[in-house]
C-alpha cells in the first residue's frame, strides 16, 4: 500500500494565548486541511491555570490530536510518546475507514471477531513503521518559557531519535512564537534531522505576548498540500482509492 505523508503540528506551550485569533478555531482549520494538532503543556514550579489547561485540551481535541500536561523533566518522554500516539491514532482512523470500505455498512474493527483483528493490527503497525512523517514543531517562547527552553531542546533531540528509528522518512521544521517581527518565526526549515538546531535556541529573545492562534494559522501554510493521509479520511472514496492503492 502506497501512502501519503502524515502531517502533525506539535505545539509546546505553558499557558494561555492572549493575542489574535482563537487558537481552537485555527486548530480545527488545521484538521480540515489534513494536519493534526498535538499540544504539550509544560509546567515547572508554576502550575498551569484552569483556563490554560482547558485551552490546551481544546486545541488538541479540535485538531484531532493528543494533548498532555507534564512537568518539564518528563518532557522528553512525553514529546515522543504524544507524537507516536497521535500517529497511531491517525493511522487507525485510516485503516478503520478502509475496513468500512471493504466490509460495508459502517463496520469497524470492533465488529470483527477478536481472532480476525490481528491482521488488521499488523497493517497499522506496518504503516506506523513506514509512513512518511512531517512534524512542524511550534514552540512558545514567551517570557515564562525562557528557562524551560533547554529542556525543550533536549526533548526535540529525543523525538528525532525516536522517529528516526523507523524505516519511514521524517521531516521536521521548527517555529517559535512570538517572533522578532512577526507573530511567528521560522528557526529551522524542513530537515530530516533535528540535531541541527543545537544553536538556534540560544539567540532567542523572549517576549511577553502569546499569539498561539496566529502562530497556528501561519504554521498550516508551511505544509506541502499535495499528499496528506488525514485528508483521505474526509474526502471522496474514489480519490481515496487512487491515493491508497
Amino acid at each position: 500500500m502506497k501512502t501519503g505523508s502524515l502531517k502533525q503540528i506539535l505545539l509546546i506551550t505553558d499557558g494561555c494565548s492572549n493575542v489574535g485569533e482563537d487558537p481552537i478555531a485555527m486548530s480545527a482549520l488545521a484538521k480540515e486541511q489534513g494536519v493534526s494538532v498535538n499540544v504539550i503543556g509544560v509546567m515547572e514550579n508554576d502550575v498551569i491555570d484552569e483556563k490554560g489547561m482547558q485551552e490546551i485540551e481544546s486545541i488538541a481535541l479540535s485538531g484531532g490530536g493528543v494533548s498532555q500536561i507534564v512537568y518539564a523533566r518528563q518532557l522528553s518522554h512525553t514529546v515522543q510518546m504524544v507524537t507516536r500516539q497521535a500517529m497511531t491514532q491517525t493511522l487507525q482512523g485510516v485503516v478503520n475507514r478502509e475496513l468500512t470500505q471493504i466490509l460495508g455498512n459502517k463496520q469497524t474493527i470492533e465488529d470483527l471477531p477478536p481472532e480476525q483483528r490481528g491482521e488488521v493490527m499488523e497493517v497499522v503497525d506496518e504503516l506506523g513503521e513506514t509512513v512518511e512523517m512531517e512534524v512542524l514543531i511550534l514552540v512558545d517562547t514567551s517570557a515564562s518559557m525562557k528557562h524551560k527552553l533547554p529542556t525543550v531542546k533536549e526533548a526535540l533531540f529525543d523525538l528525532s531519535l525516536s522517529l528516526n528509528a523507523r524505516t519511514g522518512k521524517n521531516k521536521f521544521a521548527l517555529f517559535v512564537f512570538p517572533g522578532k517581527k512577526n507573530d511567528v518565526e521560522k528557526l529551522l526549515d524542513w530537515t530530516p534531522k533535528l540535531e541541527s538546531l543545537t544553536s538556534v535556541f540560544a539567540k532567542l529573545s523572549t517576549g511577553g505576548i502569546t499569539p498561539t492562534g496566529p502562530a497556528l494559522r501561519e504554521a498550516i501554510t508551511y505544509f506541502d498540500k499535495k499528499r496528506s493521509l488525514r485528508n483521505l479520511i474526509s474526502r471522496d472514496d474514489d480519490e481515496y482509492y487512487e491515493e491508497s492503492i
Partner: protein
Amino acid sequence: MSTMKSQFNLQSGAVINGKWHHKHYRIEKELGAGANGVVYLATYQGQLVALKISENGYTVTSEVNVLKSFTKVQGSTLGPSLLDVDDWQSSSKLYSFYVMEYIHGPDLLSFVKQKGEAWVPVLMLQLLSDLEELHKAGWVFGDLKPENLIVTGRAPRIRCIDVGGTTIKGRAIKEFTEFYDRGYWGLGSRKAEPTYDLFSTAMVFIHCAYPSRFSKDGRGLEQLTDKVKKHKNLKCYEDVLIPALQGRFKSASDMRQALLTCSYKQTRSKGNSVSPQTRQPTRKTKRKRHGTTGAIVVILFIGCIYFFYLYSQMV
C-alpha cells in the same frame, strides 16, 4: 492516557462477560495500571487469571499478536500464556480485553531485597536465556525494567509480564522507559535490535545495585562506567556490563557466556581469599557437616553391633 485509571473503576466482585466467547470473569483486585490499560486479578471457573482491559482496542490486539507469536516459540517461558481475547459491553461502552496466565510473585527488586544480591546474576542468566529465544524468534522485548520482571515459583524463575513494548526486529521500539533506554543515555538508536535488550539488561543489573536509581549527568558511558566501577556488587561484572552498555555483544547468549565466566572467576577468587564476613557461615556449615558424618558413623557402628548380635543369636 492519564484518564485511564478513572475509566475502569472495577470493584472486587464485578463480572466481565465476554461478548464473543461468553466467558464470565469475576474481578478480584487491580494488579496494575499503565498508559495502555489496567490489569486485574480475576477468577474464571475457580482459577486465578490476569485480565488486561483497555480503552483502545488496537492496544489489546497488538499485545495479543505478540503473546500469540510467543506461544509458537517452543518451550517458551517468555511472557504469560494467552487464555482468551474478547470484548466487554459495559453500560456505556465497548472495551476490549484479554486474559492471560497469572504470574504470581514479587517483582525483581523486591525479590532481590528479600533474598539477597547473590540472586541478581542468577536471574540475569535466566533472563538472557529467555531473551536469546525471543531474539531468535524475530522479536525484541523493548520495555525491559524491574517492574516488568516477576520472580515466581519455589525454584525461583524470572518471567517477563508486560509485552507492550515488544517489537518486531528492525522496527522502531514501541515503548520504553528512559532509565533502561540506550537512546536516553546517548548510547544508541531506538531500533529494535538484540543489543537494545542487552543494554536494558545491563541497566536492570545496575539498578539492582542502586535501588533508588540515579539520573544522567550528560557524560553518558563515562557516568555509567563510574557507577559500575564504584559499586562492590557491580565491579566484578564489569566485563559483562560495560560491553553490554556499548552494544558489543552480538547476542544474548554471548552476554550470558561472559556473565557465566565472570561468576566462575568470582567464585574462584572467593575460594582463594576468604573474607572475614564469609568465613563465619562457611565454618558453621563445616561444623554441621562434621555433625552429620559423626551421626552416620555412630549409626553404622550400632548397626554393626546389632548385626553381630543377631548373627550370634542365629548360630
